[in-house]
């Protein structure tokens, strides 16, 4: 059975966290193409021009330079082309205000960046099931 894997965009400025996601993908045998943007501005540029087909899933950090995750989400949700993309927020911020802002902008999930890689792996394994549904 050949199945077209959906593209995934990771918006994250920390190199170690990018590696973290890549490693978690490899360990869970996730073969979707992963695009990486370093901040919201870059992510919008990539969505507007270079990612074909458009990603169905975005993994989004909140604290980033230039344009943070919440600002990016606001702009994205106003654009008809992007408003149906599933967004998972992935952040160190356990602040209620960040969570509320994110959920108000219709996010599919909120992943707290854990200290240990093992905990992160199990969240990615759970997400993989969800992503497979997106691919149907």
């Amino acid at each position, binding site marked *: 059975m050949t199945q077209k894997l959906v593209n995934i965009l990771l918006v994250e400025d920390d190199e*170690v966290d990018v*590696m*973290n996601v890549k*490693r978690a993908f490899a360990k869970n045998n996730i073969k979707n193409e992963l695009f990486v943007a370093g901040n919201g501005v870059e992510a919008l540029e990539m969505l507007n021009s270079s990612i074909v087909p458009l990603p169905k899933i975005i993994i989004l950090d909140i604290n980033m330079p230039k344009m943070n995750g919440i600002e990016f989400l606001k702009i994205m949700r106003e654009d008809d082309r992007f408003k149906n993309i599933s967004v998972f927020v992935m952040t*160190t*911020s356990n602040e209620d205000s960040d969570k509320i802002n994110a959920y108000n902008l219709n996010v599919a999930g909120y992943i707290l960046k854990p*200290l*240990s*890689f093992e905990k992160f792996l199990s969240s990615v394994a759970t997400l993989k099931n969800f992503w497979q549904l997106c691919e149907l």
Partner: protein
Amino acid sequence: MEEPDTKCQAKLESLKKEFEDFIYIISHDMKTPMRAISNISNWIEEDLGATINPSIKENFNLLKNRVQRLENMMNAMLELSRVERYDMDFIEVNIPKLIDEIIFITKDKLNTEFHISLHLKNENFITYIKKLEKVLLSVIDNSVRFNNNIKKNVYIEVVETDINYEFEIKDDGLGVEEAVKDKIFDIFYTVHSKDVLDTTGSGLAISDKILKFVGGNIEYKKNPSGGSIFKMIWPKNIEIKK
């Protein structure tokens, strides 16, 4: 006379806020590089493969344990800085039910017998429920953890007075030496080496801060028959702060 007082009070409030913000920023922002150290050490270990030299393996374990300890300390600092601002649910608590729940979530209680004695006219009262739970959990958890007996006993007594609920938690465990009994409420202070009992040393410091916040108090007494007694006075009526 009132004016300098108000000025002093304002200055104090602003310093307090600055201090809390400072702790928050430190403990929050320092987590990112700390997580990186933890992750990268895992990856190096993984990449070295299965044939790893035992001494390297041992050092990796130490490294990971210490990073974890650092994280626990940062989380504790964060929790301490947030006592007056977070978990502010002010709702009805049922004391017998709360004690049952706390015993239920206490870890490593397999060989522990809990003796509960309640002298209550009103089982229910309205208070900062999460804060009361945190304090009781910290003290009960300590009484189980700092106890090497094969069979452990923890005595929980609650007495209702006109204005307070008085909780006394007594155990037959290791107790605390007279010379250090004031230090146990300091953050990160541990009676035993952290290598013997891996604990952060923050539960009592946070509890002490909570009790000051609600206008009560907590104190330690040596159990004459060995072990510790913690006595907490928790006011029935707490003035809600803005």
